[in-house]
């Protein structure tokens, strides 16, 4: 298995020092904010703040790894959402297929920004929170340990899975394989030589990992201890309160009619 960096970036920043639970509270605050507002300007503020913070804590490399997905979702959303919006305002574009009004444009832009904000927010969380902290944080929120550990392991294995997929892609390219084809069926078929080795390798690795886990004493039934319990200090309380304020404030403003298209 090739070595692949995890998404966690080891830095000593304000966010890194926070308890995972306070970071979760902050994340919930941001998510609720971008969810309740539809106006792209109102969604842009938390999106920009989250993105700037991601850059400040050293998450640029992580963003680059997922930038294709973010861009694809943003553009596809931007193209599709107008079809689901109520038209209104001046017509900005007229084509034989239909028109694009100002309201439809703003609606689509807001929705696409929302998706981008969800991804960037999640990325910020995993960039600043190690697997152990995520697991410990979720566990202290009452989730079963087995579930928490599964989430942490999935996050750790994701980059490994990408690394393995890249090796398979190279191995098949060296045999002259090209992805794509004349029609959708051929395109789908062209993925088979990539998907089967990736999944077979993943299945083999998962079995080895499961064996290694149990051999290290991992057991979902018995008691366990936690070596690195993070304290929940005054700063964490303050950040959690800020997250809660974001939730309450954004819902209040939305109910007052702000931030809508």
């Amino acid at each position, binding site marked *: *298995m090739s070595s692949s960096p995890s998404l966690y970036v*080891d830095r000593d920043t304000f966010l890194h020092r926070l308890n995972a639970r306070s970071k979760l509270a902050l994340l919930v605050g941001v998510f609720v904010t971008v969810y309740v507002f539809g106006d792209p300007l109102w969604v842009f503020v938390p999106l920009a703040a989250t993105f700037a913070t991601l850059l400040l804590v050293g998450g640029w490399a992580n963003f680059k790894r997922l930038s294709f997905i973010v861009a694809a979702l943003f553009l596809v959303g931007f193209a599709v959402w107008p079809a689901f919006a109520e038209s209104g305002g001046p017509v900005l574009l007229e084509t034989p297929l239909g028109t694009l009004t100002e309201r439809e444009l703003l609606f689509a832009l807001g929705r696409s920004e929302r998706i981008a904000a969800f991804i960037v927010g999640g990325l910020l969380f995993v960039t600043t929170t*190690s697997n152990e902290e995520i697991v410990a944080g979720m566990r202290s929120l009452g989730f079963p340990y087995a579930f928490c550990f599964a989430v942490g392991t999935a996050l750790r294995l994701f980059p490994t899975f990408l690394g*393995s997929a890249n090796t398979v892609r190279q191995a098949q390219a060296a*045999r002259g394989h090209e992805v794509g084809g004349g029609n959708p069926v051929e395109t789908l078929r062209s993925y088979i030589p990539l998907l089967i080795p990736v999944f077979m390798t993943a299945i083999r690795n998962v079995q*080895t990992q499961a064996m290694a886990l149990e051999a290290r*004493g991992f057991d979902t039934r018995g008691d366990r201890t936690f070596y690195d319990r993070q304290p929940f200090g005054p700063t964490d309380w303050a950040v959690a309160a800020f997250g809660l304020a974001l939730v309450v404030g954004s819902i209040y403003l939305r109910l007052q009619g702000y931030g809508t298209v």
Partner: protein
Amino acid sequence: MDNDPASGDAATLEEVVFAYERGSDLPPADSFADDADYDPDERGGPVLRGIDLGVPAGSFTVMMGASGGGKSTLLRTFNSIIPSFLTGSFDGNVDVLGRDATDARVPEMAEVVGMVLQDYEAQLFGTSVTSEVAFGPENLAVPPADIDPRIDHALEVVGLGDLDRRRPPEALSGGQKQRLVFAGVVANHPELLVLDEPTSDLDPAGSHDTLEVIRSLADSDEASAPEDWRGPETIVMVTHDIEEALLADHAVLLRAGQVYRQGPAREVFTDVEALRNARVAVPPVVDVFDRIGWSREELPLTPAEAVTAVEDSDLAWTPPAHRGETLPGTPAGTGENPGDPLFELDGIVYEYETDRESVRAVDDVDLTVREGEVVAIVGHNGSGKTTLAKQLNGLLEPDAGSARWRGQDVSELSMGEVGRSVGYVFQNPDHQIFADTIREEVSFGPENFGMEGDALERAVSEAVETVELDGLEEADPFNLSKGQRQRVALASILATDPDVIVFDEPTTGLDATQRDQFMDLVARLNREEGLTVVMVTHSMRTVARYAPRTVVMADGRKVADRPTRELFADESALEQWELQQPQPVDLSNRLAGVSGQEDALPALSVAEVVQGLGGSDASSVNAEAGGEEAGVRNDPDYGGGGRTDGGSDTGQTSGGENE
């Protein structure tokens, strides 16, 4: 670690039979015959076929045998992975440290049995050094206050005491990762440690460091150890590497899923016939003196012992050549008479980004490879070997410099144009195999390059025949052994009729027989078909035997590009680059040293050492090139030297090269 038979057995297995298929109707343990013609590759049914075994308490026991012969399966019974985790069909008794391992769960056995597997990446679960080592004790519900000293001690034992404990495991080298895995296991304070090929994925330096850890664990009773633990009482290790196996004091040979030989390591590793029957490599030094005709009791095990033995005998060392003389070819007769340049790499630079910085994986490397050459690229993990090799067929494009193939810039050629001429066999065959049959898998490449009809069928048949898998064309490649899957991968490249094949670690995970078969096949293709070979490898014995030219990479730079024999004569350079000498090289360098032959070039194979000691004529060496068995009689007229204290007069014949 003392092997005290009086202390009893740490583990006892009685009449153990196991098959991976669930619900199999298992025959009784005593119904299995010791089948000399048994081939693990072809086997179906039970993998363990009536195992009776005692592992002496306090011993360092090594288990060896053919790939697919049941070694790893057997190891998994020690901590209940079989039959608790991998249930299959099981019968028999397994007692480990007084516990019934057939009736315990794996996490329960983890309190007393620690396990380290080959794939270190799959055994790392933490995001920092500290969390990784703490993981096991946390699982065993050790109070947090007691975990601290365990972390300190475990990291100290594995030589990582000075490591920044916040570092993520993925930022460590391969050797450091495997040592971290050891630390995580050691922190559980196991009484029995089972190791499944712990060094086979590591570079020479990583292997060396890991072996040092194993050595220190075997001897550990140091003062810094916690009061309640002095190290594992007993260690059991599976390995294919005979030189590693010599660390052990007790040895077990498996054949056909049964214990074929067991006993003190020296006794087992000087039993040449038993080793060959079990498809285990004979220790090269043992092989040398066995071929010369020394009796089993006289055979030295290590180069140091051999030098003393030679000094005490009437043997004298004649090196294969001296500096300044014409170099003899490789033992395998490969890479003779190179032709025109095929690849010309000029000032290649390749960089990749990490979350912190840009890393220059290949830094200003020039390299020319000529038609018919066999070139080895060696160096540590991360030295840039594979990245350099991937420039050859355009899998990676350089950030600076140029790669030319037959004078044409590789970047101007399509993957189809260059891929057909330059085959690339990846380290892990599972990264490419996807088809339902071997025929379909082997056809994939040539079809992509536009081959069809009779030409395609002929190419596939020839490739499958070349790798000796004919008759298995309709077999499912996923059901084959690792060695066979490796050959399927090679066949799928051969079928495209390439001029060059680039191998990335071609022998990883293969046993001695599979390794020699695979590399002899590659050598034959080079000698007979003129196939140019570039191989990225950690196996210095493969380099010595098959590659007349070696390129050494370090920190992305090419630090040496020399004839292999000259490289192996430069012991200080080898030490600087942490490249280990294979035993025949080590022995011949030592013999040259004690006989004052400073300008001697080393032998590269057992046959060359035998010849240098006057034990054979050139025909024995030449026989190697054809992959045939080389026989040496103990005949004074034939040059066999006897010991001054009484040599053997038993006639000997021996098999092919075993390193």
